[in-house]
């Protein structure tokens, strides 16, 4: 492990009762690297993300984020932005109230400015192609479409400017313009040297956004490869695993 490693898993495993969701895994992701995590449903991708985010304790081994254990040092979680399967938002609050609430929890000094930046990044703020955006921001999240919720969830995940971004199926429910906005955002994050783990089944969306491929199957790592510029490489490498039985 070096000081340049953003994420280090040393023999980290996760069991739920008798079920092993993730077998012991050693994984090092250097700062600035964008890794694509691929696997069939139930392979252990979300469990891996939750371990990295510090949302669950490893049953064995250890997890270090920027050299610190997120369980023992809760402050390190401020360096993580997580986009989960679910939106992690409150349906009863408006979009603006949701983001302001999370900005408060992160102790952000200039929440309105950061809120505007996060919303702009996902195409939800001026100059936005989405009509009457400001009015929508004052409506309850419960009344939003899946795509709007997803945009807002992305804005929540990046609101505090995390250096590590964990994205679980970020393209779910997004329309073409939102997908393009997310692509721009992830490219910008790469240029800024932020670390990213992207989980998606839509390999075409991940092309050009990642420089490493990790494949896990039944809780075990099957493939770990640094990618070249070849645009077909991703699909070729993943094919045997995604076509296999879940």
């Amino acid at each position, binding site marked *: 492990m070096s000081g340049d490693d953003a994420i280090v898993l040393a023999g980290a495993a996760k069991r739920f009762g008798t079920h092993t969701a993730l077998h012991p895994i050693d994984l090092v992701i250097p700062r600035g690297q964008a890794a694509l995590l691929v696997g069939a449903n139930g392979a252990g991708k979300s469990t891996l993300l939750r371990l990295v985010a510090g949302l669950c304790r490893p049953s064995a081994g250890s997890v270090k984020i920027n050299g610190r254990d997120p369980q023992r040092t809760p*402050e390190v979680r*401020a360096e993580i932005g997580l986009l989960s399967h679910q939106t*992690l938002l409150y349906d009863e609050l408006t979009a603006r109230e949701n983001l302001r609430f999370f900005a408060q929890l992160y102790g952000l000094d200039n929440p309105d400015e950061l809120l505007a930046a996060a919303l702009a990044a996902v195409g939800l703020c001026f100059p936005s192609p989405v009509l009457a955006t400001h009015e929508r921001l004052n409506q309850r999240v419960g009344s939003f479409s899946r795509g709007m919720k997803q945009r807002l969830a992305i804005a929540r995940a990046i609101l505090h400017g995390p250096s590590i971004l964990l994205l679980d199926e970020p393209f779910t429910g997004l329309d073409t313009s939102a997908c393009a906005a997310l692509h721009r955002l992830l490219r910008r994050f790469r240029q800024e040297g932020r670390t990213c783990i992207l989980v998606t089944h839509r390999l075409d969306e991940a092309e050009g956004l990642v420089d490493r491929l990790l494949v896990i199957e039944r809780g075990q790592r099957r493939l770990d490869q640094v990618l070249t510029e070849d645009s077909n490489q991703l699909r070729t490498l993943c094919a045997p695993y995604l076509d296999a039985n879940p």
Partner: protein
Amino acid sequence: MSFLGRALAILRKDLKAEWRTKARLSPMVFFILLMLLVFNFSFDLGGAALREIGPGTLWSSYVFASLLSLGRSFADERDNNALDALLLAPGDCGAIYLGKMLGNFVFLLAIELLSLPFFALFFNLSLGFFLLPLLAVFVLGSACMASAGTLFAALSNNMRLRELMLPLLLLPMILPALISSVEATGLVLANECCEKLFPHLQMLGVYAVVFTVLSLMLFEYAIEE
């Protein structure tokens, strides 16, 4: 952000959501009114009955109404897995407990104060300054229920039979506080305050402090999957 600041942010969020939905207060108020009404028709109330069954009626309705509210206190967090977002925020997760506990305390105290005029009406109780110590009993009794209830609501949040588990876990634990609350309320209603009331208030205060401190220490394990 400070520990207290995070707790207050969570409290404000819960109060705002409740103000819009009334998902917790409405069933609590209706349940308490229904219980008082049923007791009003079942017993010949007033006089001695007020002191004998009044405190028990009042606190048993509060306890069961609080179960309705406590059961919902983590429902908002469960709906879109928002609890994960709270846990991802930096800082001690005890702040989540404190924010939730304060919310439960406010809701309990609110329904206790709201139901008091109806209790007075149904039990032929004349309102007066002699009832002022009841405020202390309500505050401390609510603090006891909220401190223990929030921990067990968090614990049962991940369980499959959470609606069943919450009362099973909570009711035996709050029994000492419940007995003291009933006794203290009885003394206030009989206008026998002073030295007899103080030990009960002391007991409620100690229970609330001990359970709050214990819960702050145990909360991160209670919400773990």
